[in-house]
């Protein structure tokens, strides 16, 4: 497994980011980096600011202080559209699929950015538009194959069980061929078997496509097993950062999770 993987240079660096909503401080002076090709986990108790952190990275929230450096380029204000162009894709904590569309269409939206045909071409279904639809369909079918969801490709996503919806959402993110993939609790609410499947998929994505992954997860077993390095947040501050074994034995982390007697 490790033979194919190579952890490269710093791909994403979060530098002293602070984010507040009015008086509520979601993040305070958080810094960490993500290296090319690694699986980086962000953990922490509920309300620690994990999802806010992801939202800062792909431009849904704009931090008041600090910067996000992506591929060496610092940026304070980036909108989600631009982040997507730069190769950042993500999944959401509570599934954000397009409920009225089929699985296939949902995944195809992931490739919208790569389509060039104009409105008129699409209306006439001519030349480039037709070729593009077919070419991208083929790419999407590879992902459908990869995630083993062939049997549901024409099903409206609203009718699917939770575990499969999570998988379709991963497929949609993968369809964009991201450089950096942000996964917000990809295994929440799954049973053991589904979790194992999802772990396998995440590892496969990382190994086969070389995609860098930032992952938020509550299942400590999973996090310790699959991630290369872990950031721990509590009340919007970073309290630990390092290899799984270091984090596991860090007294601050143990206190954050188990509480301290006063």
């Amino acid at each position: 497994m490790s033979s194919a993987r190579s952890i490269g240079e710093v791909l994403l660096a979060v530098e002293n980011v602070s984010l507040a909503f009015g008086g509520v401080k979601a993040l305070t002076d958080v810094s960490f980096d993500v290296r090319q090709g690694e699986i980086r986990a962000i953990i922490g108790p509920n309300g620690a600011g994990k999802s806010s952190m992801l939202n800062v990275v792909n431009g849904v929230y704009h931090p008041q202080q600090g910067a996000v450096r992506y591929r060496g380029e610092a940026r304070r204000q980036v909108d989600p559209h631009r982040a997507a162009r730069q190769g950042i894709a993500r999944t959401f904590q509570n599934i954000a699929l397009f409920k009225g569309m089929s699985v296939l269409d949902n995944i195809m939206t992931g490739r919208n950015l790569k389509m060039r045909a104009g409105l008129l071409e699409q209306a006439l279904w001519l030349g480039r538009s037709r070729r593009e639809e077919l070419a991208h369909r083929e790419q999407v079918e590879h992902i459908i194959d990869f995630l083993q969801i062939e049997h549901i490709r024409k099903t409206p996503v609203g009718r699917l069980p939770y575990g499969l919806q999570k998988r379709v959402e991963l497929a949609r993110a993968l369809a964009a061929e991201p450089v950096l993939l942000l996964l917000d609790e990809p295994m929440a609410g799954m049973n053991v078997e589904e979790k194992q499947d999802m772990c396998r998929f995440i590892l496969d994505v990382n190994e086969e496509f070389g995609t860098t992954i930032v992952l938020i997860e509550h299942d400590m077993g999973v996090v310790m097993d699959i991630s290369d390095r872990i950031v721990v947040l509590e009340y919007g501050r970073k309290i630990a950062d390092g290899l799984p074994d270091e984090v596991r034995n860090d007294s601050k982390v143990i206190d954050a999770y188990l509480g301290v007697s006063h």
Partner: protein
Amino acid sequence: MLYREAGQFKTSYAADQQLLPIRQDRVALIVLLAIAYLAVPVVANDYWFNAILIPFLVFALAALGLNILTGYAGQLSLGSAAFMAVGAVAAYNFELRVPGMPLLASFALAGLCAAAVGVLFGLPSLRIKGFYLAVATLAAQFFIPWLLVKVGWFSNYSSSGVITAQPMQIVGYVFEQPVEKYLLVLTVVALMALAAKNMVRSAVGRSWMAVRDMDVAAAVIGIPIMRTKLVAFAVSSFYCGVAGALYAYAYVGTVQPEDLNLDMSFRILFMIIIGGIGSILGSFLGAAFITLLPIFLESALHAITQQFGLDLVPGMTSMVQLLVFGGLIIFFLIVEPNGLARLWQITKEKLRLWPFPH
């Protein structure tokens, strides 16, 4: 039994992505078009063309336009009739003021004018959603017909802003007879319906639906929300504008912009609610339902009163019509919120398995 796709294997993605992947659907469409083009002109009389078929097609096109905006892109609009009015007046002015202007070019330019106005009134959608957006489009509905009457230039200074459509002439041939008008409208509507179907099954349609279903996720995937919404407004208003031009030229002939009022916008909205939100077929089913129902109710009422020798109070018929109409809309909203198109889809799914339940 007949409607079954067993044995129709797709060997390429092209085959799987064609317009109608099931062979029976393709046959049905060809038969339907053959009836519309060959049988109907022979069988139907002028009353059928003028009172039923042409209005049905014109409103189907307007409903299609609204369905693109509301059904596919999820932006509620109460301004469809106003955009129709823009289309009607614009086509009239192009024909009037540009010598030798081809009719179809006028229609297309009328659509583009309506699209421009649609984008203008679609700008609020970038900030507001749902009911609040409906109120913003309501402004279009009140403002545009008022403006078209107020500024005399639009109606060539006719009294009370009435425009009278010029004869329809395409490369020297005058479309005068109802059957000719019907065939022209049918062709325009069929082609535009095909274009709409193509749009909703390609990238732009997926962007619309993505914005409708979950706008944050759409943005994160890289769909430009603002542009997508404005394109939806433009395309939708284009359809409404062409429908308005056809309304003026092929259906009523003389248009008072105030006729295209809020009432009309609501009728178009009811068409897509009853026909099916987010369905091309639904736009046609809804338009058929709403244009045919009053005629049907009237003749039914007439038959009933004849049968029992009742004397109806004047105005009773229209009131009973309204009552039944309102009742049916509520009935539909409760029983099948997804409209006639959904009922049709369920029927097809059942047919595929018939005689087995699963």
